[in-house]
């Protein structure tokens, strides 16, 4: 690996992302053993990678997602989802194109990725997300509900959105 990482740093990345990556893989493939295999494969690829990895976290998530998608395609489970997506699309717009299907698939992957990221947030942050985006509460309302200051609610939500956008951008979701 040429990511200029020392052994301790590599182990740090492993300890930090083992559980998130396992959760992410399990949320996609819905199989614990397969998720373990896929995460292990991801880390092994990560350590054996000859090219320099500038953003290890993004690289690990992107690699794991691709491995999961390949696994689902091999087992015929992704096609069924695609067909369901296609039917939904036809019901909505009465016409379909391949590009739209691809975009829908990519969008779903992005939503899953965001859902995964939110699931990893602390309970307080999750509550803020739910109040703001699900219940469409204002900062004042959230401040009253949570007891946090309006500026603190704003700071925390801004930080969450900013981090998510950075990760999604690093993982090429916004091409």
């Amino acid at each position: 690996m040429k990511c200029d990482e020392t052994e301790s740093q590599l182990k740090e990345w492993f300890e930090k992302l083992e559980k998130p990556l396992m959760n992410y893989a399990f949320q996609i493939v819905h199989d614990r053993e397969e998720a373990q295999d896929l995460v292990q494969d991801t880390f092994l690829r990560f350590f054996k990678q000859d090219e320099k990895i500038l953003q290890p976290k993004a690289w690990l998530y992107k690699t794991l997602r691709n491995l999961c998608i390949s696994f689902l395609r091999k087992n015929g489970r992704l096609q069924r989802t695609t067909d369901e997506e296609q039917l939904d699309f036809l019901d909505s717009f009465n016409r379909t194109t391949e590009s739209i299907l691809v975009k829908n698939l990519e969008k779903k992957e992005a939503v899953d990725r965001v859902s995964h990221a939110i699931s990893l947030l602390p309970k307080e942050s999750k509550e803020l997300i739910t109040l703001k985006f699900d219940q469409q509460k204002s900062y004042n309302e959230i401040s009253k509900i949570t007891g946090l200051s309006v500026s603190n609610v704003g700071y925390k939500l801004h930080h969450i959105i900013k981090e998510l956008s950075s990760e999604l951008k690093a993982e090429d979701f916004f091409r």
Partner: protein
Amino acid sequence: MNNDLDISEEEIISYLLGEVDNDKKLFIQRLISENPQLQEMERVLTDTIRLVEQSTKEPLPDLEEGELLLSQKRRNAILGLVEKEETLTLEKQKSSLPKDKKSDHFLFWVPLGIAACAFLILSVTDSDHLSTAEITLNREQESTSEQDELEGTTTDAIDIEEELALNLALENQAQEGVVQILTQRSTIEVEAMKRDLNNSLSIGDVLAYSDPTPFNSVEDSTSVVSPVPSSANRSAPPRVQSETLSKIQNLGADHSIMLHTKELGAELSVKKEKVVDPSPKPIIEDSVVPPLRTEQIEQNEDIIITEKKRKAAGSENSTQTNRTSSGRFQTQAIPQFQKGLISEYLPRLWGSSEPTYLFTSKGKTLGKVRIIKKTDTAIEFVRLNETMRGKSTLPDGLGYQLRLSDSNSSTVIIVGHLTRVKVAEIKNKRMAKSDLVKDLDFTTYSIQIEEAWKLDEKENRIPIK
């Protein structure tokens, strides 16, 4: 916060989330419209907020703490790889580091210095020390070689030499054994061949190359070309040979061919060089046995009957057979069987070690026989060649010829009537000593002596009177 921009990322997020007043909203909208970087930032943040909104509508179930982790085995595999990669990286770094020049110099000079010191010590020490050192070295070498031998690690050269010597010895022994066997075999075979040749020579002398004088007078024997080949005959021109052959053919005899080889003919010619016969002799590859013609046999029978009548009448005139100018055999004087004369010759032949041969009336050889019983008028014998299984039994008939020879006496030809006597079992008999006749049943034959001839030095047939 982007320092190049007039607005922060947090302000744009607040704007997108509807948390800014109208004035600030218009201000941000103007800035974004004027700056592509802000437009891109707005697009990314807008998409992220939409994704978060969608994800909140379909929230993922909370995972139990510690539920999803890699197994310890997988963790060890991954972390072990990390440590290995680290070790390799360190080694590469070490190998890639420039070598210390001081250490190079040290590594170069130390062995050289040690060698120089050793040389100085050896040169300074006296001869006693030197010899002691040599002895020590020799002892070390000897002990090393002994140790190698004990450990079975002798040099390959020694092994190869030993193997070669062993192989040579084995080959020599094998060759000696083969040579001995071949010598014994060849000796036995050569002796057997010599015996056969000698025996066959006698047959050829008597039957194949002899002048058919039994049917000629003794006086006419010189006028008849003897078919015995000689060295002179070998060089005889083809014309002479053809003439001689034609003469033989004119004999009117049915030439039965005996299976004699060229070598046999040559051997015969050498042996018969003493025969004084200036006429060119033909080179006959196959021995020709003058047969007894049927008419001759009939004549002989008539003669015998006549002679018996004459004998009964007290007449002892003999008859002989001569060849006419037409080549036909005619009975001129038939030798009368006289048991007294036969008895004079035969006893010397009974004990002869020379083999006895049987021929048909046409001169075809029937192989060796062994006489088992003899009387004044008949000879009972067993065919030794009958050991070849499948050989047919001889039919009774006239004109069978027995050739008895002895190295010290002349050869005798006995002509008579062959009769199959009986099937005798020869087991435990004296003849059974021979391996050829051992444990075999034979047919015995009896030949009634009707004529007898002796061969002179010129191989001419002389009737025994």
